[in-house]
């Protein structure tokens, strides 16, 4: 069963072709890595998957809903986290989670916030203003917000950026557990290749808006005759021909 299906996606700006004929599927219970250097088209792709940006061509089906026609039905069952989009700094962590709990119509919101505070070690931070938190703490709050509605499809942009190794490992374990417990599908954009190797069932390597290569991390490492995904990434990023 597909959580996400992307067909011939194109995004053309007046000065640039940001995404060029991108097609892929993401099955439920799987984690797909979206990799690529800066300007490869990852953010543009994620923005289109979330309905924030309209494609120039192509179609997106999220949880069976056509994003061009019925995106709000899909968005209620999805969620997103990025360290590059902030939560209101003057609100406490609890208030931020309450606001988004209302937006996502979360049942028994107080209890859900308590569960997430425990899962992401936020209990001592709930009543502090979000703006007073460290970068790592903000990342954990953003993740808690992304888990509020128990999403069936989770889009994560650099989910462990700014986290120390201990917390980064903790979050990766939480993602694995969540996927196992709920069967959720996760699309993960990351520059942390060790994280990609650990979490992803398959990766899409993007370059200049197109898919440069795709496959399971182990298969890609074998195909390029490298030792790890870091080396595969560097090889593809530095190789001019697609």
């Amino acid at each position, binding site marked *: 069963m597909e959580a996400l299906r992307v067909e011939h996606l194109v995004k053309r*700006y007046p000065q640039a072709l940001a995404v060029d004929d991108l097609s892929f599927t993401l099955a439920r219970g799987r984690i797909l890595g979206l990799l690529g250097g800066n300007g490869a088209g990852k*953010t*543009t792709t994620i*923005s289109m998957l*979330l*309905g*924030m*940006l*309209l494609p120039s061509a192509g179609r997106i089906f999220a949880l069976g809903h056509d994003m061009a026609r019925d995106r*709000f039905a899909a*968005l*209620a069952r*999805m969620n*997103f986290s*990025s360290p*590059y*989009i*902030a*939560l*209101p*700094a*003057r*609100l*406490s962590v609890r*208030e931020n989670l*309450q*606001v*988004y*709990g*209302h*937006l*996502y*119509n979360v049942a028994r919101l107080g209890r859900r916030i308590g569960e997430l505070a425990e899962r992401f070690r936020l209990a001592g931070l709930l009543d502090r203003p979000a703006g007073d938190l460290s970068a790592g703490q903000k990342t954990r709050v953003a993740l808690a*917000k992304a888990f509020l509605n128990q999403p069936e499809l989770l889009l994560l942009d650099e989910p462990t950026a700014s986290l120390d190794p201990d917390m980064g490992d903790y979050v990766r374990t939480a993602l694995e557990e969540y996927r196992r417990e709920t069967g959720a599908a996760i699309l993960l954009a990351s520059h942390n290749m060790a994280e990609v190797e650990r979490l992803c069932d398959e990766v899409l390597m993007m370059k200049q808006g197109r898919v440069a290569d795709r496959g399971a991390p182990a298969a890609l490492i074998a195909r390029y005759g490298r030792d790890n995904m870091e080396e595969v990434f560097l090889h593809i990023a530095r190789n001019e021909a697609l």
Partner: protein
Amino acid sequence: MSGAARRIWGLVYRHVCVYRRSWPRLVEIAYWPTLELLIWGFTANFLSQGFHAGPAALTGTALIAGVLLWEIVLRAQIGVTFSFLEEIWSRNLGHLFVSPLRPAELVAALLAVSVIRTWIGLLPAIIIAFLLYHYDLFAPGPVMVLFFLNLLVMGWWVALAIVSLLFRYGAGAEALAWTIAFGITPFACVFYPVSSLPGWLQPVALALPASHVFEGLRALLLHARVDWAQFTAAAALNVVWALAACAVFAGEFHRARVRGALISIGE
């Protein structure tokens, strides 16, 4: 609570959280209406000095009523645009636009916040007008509610037009949020009749609901009669302008999604 009502409440709650713990923000909301009232209230007192009745005293009363009622338009407009700018400044729009919150619900929440802000801003001025100048805004009776509503709606459609400009030009258009409604003031005929404008400017004034509201207000205060024709004209113009503003908002929101402006609106 239905899903839509809960989403609207969620966004209203986000702004309530900011105001309930920040007294400087609450003071700021009430500061300008109170200051305006004090300046024009004393001016009105000066103009009507020695007159306890007659045209001079009534002109003073009309001046104070005009100040208070025009503040409804300004506060309603600023209430919407400031709340939207708050989302831009806090870089929160990205989260909002990928949540199930519909654009219409976003607008409904901004309008609700503007009603709260308008009352917080106006209440001290209304009380001061009563205590200092013995002017009771509500003395003319329930018809004042109709004036209020017309001016509130005008503030809203002006705000929607400004938010549309923010979608198109990004935070660079922020200055418009503070200046556009003030720029309309000369044509709204708050303190003088439409007939006192040059002939070529009168159609501009007559296209604004506010000018009809203030003509109606003067008829009420000076001649003690409700001019329903002016009220009907104001309401009809509000409907037309509000529909136009909604269409512009929907169009600019769509174009922002095409251009990717929702991602970079704060930059």
